[in-house]
């Protein structure tokens, strides 16, 4: 039979296949060269880039939890200028789509980073990080308030001609409200979800494990929560979605697709097996072949056919 067509189109963003590596779990991509061929990835999302380098939070920053982990890195990054000057020229050698994750403490900082990336050769899209739970300013403050989210999205929309992805926070009462706000602000694509706020306590020391007390929970533990949010947003907002949350293998990824995602991001799994995104991709390809499905598009949201809205 014919090989399935893996290419996907998310509004203005065309990807060679539906599997990306998620922000904060893939560095600037180059760290993975010993372990995989970047050309095989649909794309990857950079560590969050701020206008200037960020030191990040004091350690301890991570702790393993059942089927997951908490992190409070605090967006340690090289800053957008160093990314453009040092990392991007290296990345242009590869065919993979480089999505720049953008972070600012203020709306003006978001605009500054977006504007710089707009003129940089080799960036396929921007993902707005309005959902980081581990920074005091910016981050989730934008992501949890529909009015503020709509405004910062619109401002970034006007500052860049690149495809604009808004990464949603799950730490809200109803994710459909923030999804609609991002859509109203002019987002082309929504990615969901970022990490859930949580904490762990060392009972022997009787203190929080993490230096900043709380952190963001990721890994398979959050997958059912993230699939449900993807399902809800797919039925509420007519934008293409990228599903994120504890994806380890192709079956996990296909849950998000069947719930309504057109593509997926693999995150925490890349810490354990650096080639995890490619394992997911090969598994999706094998699934499509086995079921005689020509393109992944046929499966997007397919779990809801026959179920009344």
């Amino acid at each position: 039979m014919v090989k399935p067509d893996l290419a996907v189109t998310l509004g203005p963003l065309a990807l060679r296949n539906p599997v990306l590596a998620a922000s904060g779990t893939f560095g600037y991509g180059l760290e993975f060269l010993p372990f995989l061929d970047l050309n095989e990835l649909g794309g990857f999302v950079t560590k969050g880039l701020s206008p200037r380098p960020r030191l990040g939070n004091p350690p301890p920053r991570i702790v393993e939890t059942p089927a997951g982990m908490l992190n409070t890195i605090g967006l340690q990054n090289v800053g957008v200028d160093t990314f453009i000057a040092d990392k991007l020229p290296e990345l242009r050698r590869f065919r993979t789509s480089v999505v720049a994750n953008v972070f600012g403490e203020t709306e003006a900082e978001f605009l500054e980073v977006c504007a710089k990336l707009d003129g940089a050769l080799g960036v396929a899209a921007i993902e707005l990080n309005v959902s980081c739970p581990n920074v005091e300013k910016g981050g989730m403050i934008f992501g949890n308030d529909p009015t503020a989210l709509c405004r910062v999205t619109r401002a970034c929309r006007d500052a860049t001609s690149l495809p604009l992805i808004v990464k949603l926070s799950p730490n809200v009462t109803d994710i459909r409200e923030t999804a609609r706000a991002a859509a109203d602000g002019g987002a082309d694509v929504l990615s969901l979800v970022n990490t859930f706020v949580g904490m762990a306590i060392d009972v022997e020391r009787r203190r929080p494990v993490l230096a900043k007390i709380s952190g963001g929970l990721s890994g398979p533990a959050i997958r059912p929560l993230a699939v449900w949010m993807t399902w809800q947003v797919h039925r509420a907002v007519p934008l293409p979605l990228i599903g994120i949350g504890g994806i380890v293998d192709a079956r996990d990824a296909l849950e998000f697709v069947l719930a309504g995602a057109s593509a997926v991001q693999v995150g925490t799994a890349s810490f354990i097996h650096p080639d995890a995104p490619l394992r997911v991709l090969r598994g999706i390809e094998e699934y499509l072949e086995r079921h005689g499905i020509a393109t992944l598009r046929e499966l997007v949201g397919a779990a809801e056919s026959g179920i009344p809205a």
Partner: protein
Amino acid sequence: MPRDLTTPVLRNVELGHGNFLIEFDGRELGAGMQPAQFFMIGVPGSAALLRRPYSVCGLAGTFDDAPPHAVQVLYKVVGHGTALLAALGPGAPIDVLGPLGRGFSPPARPDARPVIVAGGIGCAPFPALLHWLERSAPWMYYGARTGEDLPLLDWFERHAERVVVTTDDGSRGLRGRVTEPLEELLAEEDPAGLEIYACGPEPMLRAVARIARTRGASCQLSLEAHMACGFGVCLGCVVPTHRPGGDGLVYDRVCVEGPVMQAERLAW
């Protein structure tokens, strides 16, 4: 160049008191590994999500009774991840990612005497280092809580020119901290003729770093940290270090800039 491979356990020997030496087939890992480089090791299909970091303990030739393609890792059962490893027998597959990080360097002065300072299970990288530096007649200062927490002591006594043992409870060697005889040594010998290599609990490393700085001895520390990935992307394992050529501090990754760092670089 690190590799990610699934490889069989060759032996998993209990050394007593919760200490184990696990040996696996390392022929696909290539040559040229440095002492104190490490592996991220996981047990396929286990309930633990993340792998754990373990420093290389023995390389080809370190242990006489081991085949040349074997790599050894010394560990103590302290939690979930190490308990999973301890349950494995010969032939069981393990996921091994490595070798990773920056290992120990030879002494800055080629004629310097290596002085090894180990705290308990922190002795793990030192068989490989001793094998590497055997001709430089290394001395070793090996401390632990009790005489039961001194794995591979017999091996060290055969391979180091001198071993000074300390225990907190006095059940073996001198009673007290390992840093006490180290301070005496540095008061007697010319510090410029010594190269200190230390690995152990953080309070011990801080004390060793302070002594080395006071006496002006070159000192390499092998650090330990919780890490999710081991190859520089999770940013979970950082330690504060002095900003190169400037004021203030930055966070360096134990997995990439370390695990071995010069003591004076750390902003403790």
